[in-house]
């Protein structure tokens, strides 16, 4: 239900990294969530594509959700992202 909040914060994190790393495009975003979390991967991707519309760098990016082992973990961790950069960057 709060995918909007999640994606809003996620975009803030991604914007910062992409600028630092001079990313041309984001391909994959790998996140880890609580094993009991109700967040849904399809839903997250839908919200992400709606909220990042118009930003070329995120076009076609895919959020992959992995469920962690710790049932008390309440965070949503961005483990890593796969980006495309110009050669030499």
């Amino acid at each position, binding site marked *: 239900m709060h995918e909007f909040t999640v994606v809003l914060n996620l975009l803030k994190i991604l914007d910062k990294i992409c600028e630092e790393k001079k990313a041309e495009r984001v391909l994959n975003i790998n996140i880890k969530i609580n094993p009991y979390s*109700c*967040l849904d991967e399809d839903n997250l991707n839908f919200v992400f594509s709606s909220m990042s519309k118009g930003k070329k760098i995120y076009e076609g990016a895919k959020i992959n959700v992995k469920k962690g082992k710790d049932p008390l973990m309440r965070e949503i961790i961005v483990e890593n992202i*796969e980006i495309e950069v110009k050669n030499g960057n």
Partner: protein
Amino acid sequence: MEIKVIKVGASVFEENEKIAEEVKKFLKSRGIISFNFMGSPGSGKTTILERTVSLLKENYRIGVIEGDIAGSYDAKKFEKFKIPVVQINTGGACHLDANMVKSGIENLPVKDLEVIFVENVGNLVCPAEFEIGTGINIVVVSVVEGDDKPKKYPLMFKISDICIVNKIDILEFSDFNPEKFNERVLSVNDKIKIFNLSAKTGKNFNQWIDFVKNSVKR
């Protein structure tokens, strides 16, 4: 073009967690015991709080933070008790977050308080995913909701310290099986403490009140 994998390791709710930690520290430094009431709409969170406040207000200094998507209907119910109440409207959000609770606390006369009750937005899903900095997490379930809830919303039961089963006065009119329910709750969280009561009639309510009293150190 080349493809790179960038290690991130950042938490999406980092800001929320930071504020929740601040809230927690602040309450601890003042010796304030705080409770976060979660549960479905209509499970009886407000009614439990009303009865609790009415029984404790003479001897304890209590503040209440009411979280709702809209309106101040719940906060108004506490006016009769003449205790400080803050209504937070989430403006559509399905849960309270730490920042909302922080501003709620800032609007309470904290130096005069020993106990703060926070009533979260009625919802068994989202409030469980947001740390708000309060001490004791409570999930309220009423018997009419059915005994399958721990199986369907495990995270809520996992992160709760207390489970209050409310409306036991109408148990006979429902299909709720208390034994099955307890078994299901404990299979998700074996440390949870369960209270069976009726906030409307007051049945078994003293057990809960004793628990609150014991939680408040003096």
